[in-house]
């Protein structure tokens, strides 16, 4: 289930359902706080794909999960490169990008973008959370000033220490248009997006719905 794979920066890990089957989906996880809230859902979607005869692979992003690399030295570009490396290593035939992962999904792969979120929108939400937390603690922080500081020297947002290059990359990141990757909106899945939950939660029906969309299109 846990597969190690070599990258230029050292060994990386991925959760893999690999039976050498013809359809192989690279699953790119949501980012930052959303990755925690969607991890259970993401793995449950992969279990259902496995049950439908579809292989899938969920690589750790450099600097996240089991990765030993410092998060602070990562950039949007380094995550894009890692996604491309993983696609190649696991011989992926399709990609499922969750939320902000749509910003770095390899354009060579057809597939789906679940509730895609521009990097700039994710950064906006992270900055807002930091401003609100500071205010609660009696400090006055300002979003524009924080962004300026972050672009110079990096910034800690929602417990994640992000480098200046990552902040820059996020601020500039708009969703790419990739004709072979179809967007799946939350309204196609039904129920509230699990990334919205204040406390991580799971909804098996949502995992059923997303896996069913993929399986029906892959096995058609």
């Amino acid at each position, binding site marked *: 289930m846990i597969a190690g794979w070599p990258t230029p920066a050292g060994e990386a890990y991925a959760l893999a359902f690999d039976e050498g089957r013809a359809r192989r989906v690279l699953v790119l996880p949501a980012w930052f*706080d959303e990755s925690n809230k969607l991890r259970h859902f993401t793995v449950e979607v992969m279990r259902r794909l496995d049950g439908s005869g579809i292989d899938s692979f969920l690589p750790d992003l450099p600097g996240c999960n089991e990765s030993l690399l410092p998060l602070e030295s990562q950039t949007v570009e380094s995550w894009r490169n890692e996604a491309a490396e993983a696609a190649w290593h696991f011989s992926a035939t399709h990609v499922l990008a969750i939320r902000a992962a749509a910003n770095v999904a390899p354009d060579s792969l057809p597939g789906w973008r679940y509730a895609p979120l521009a990097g700039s*929108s994710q950064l*906006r*939400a*992270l900055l*807002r*959370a*930091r*401003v*609100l*937390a500071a*205010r*609660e603690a009696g400090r006055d922080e*300002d*979003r524009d000033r924080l962004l300026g500081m972050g672009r110079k020297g990096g910034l800690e947002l*929602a417990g994640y220490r992000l480098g200046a290059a990552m902040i820059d990359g996020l601020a500039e990141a708009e969703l790419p248009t990739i004709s072979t990757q179809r967007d799946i909106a939350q*309204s196609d899945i039904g129920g*509230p*997006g699990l*990334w*919205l*939950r*204040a*406390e991580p*939660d799971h909804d098996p029906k949502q995992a059923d719905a997303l896996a069913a969309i993929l399986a029906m299109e892959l096995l058609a």
Partner: protein
Amino acid sequence: MANARALFDGDTRMSSQAAANDTDTVLRQVLQDVLGLSSERVAAFTPQTGLFGHLPELDSMAVAGLLTEIEDRLGIIVEDDEVDGEMLETFGALLAFVRAKRGG
């Protein structure tokens, strides 16, 4: 259950009365989604129902998510300096703020 957003999307001809009612509905829906509450519990919210500081799960990260979702679903922009403890303290205060923003 019908998604409040789906009901709202594409309908630009609503009267201001309908818009006011929709603000209430959408706000309850967003709170339900963020807090993971039952629709019955959210339907029972009154203007005095306490939010920030009363619900432990509504921390700064959750409030940020809540405001971003309200912006998306209602097509408004909330500036950080408009956000304070008072506006988030009760359901009634938040509803009044969002209604004022929408001009309805």
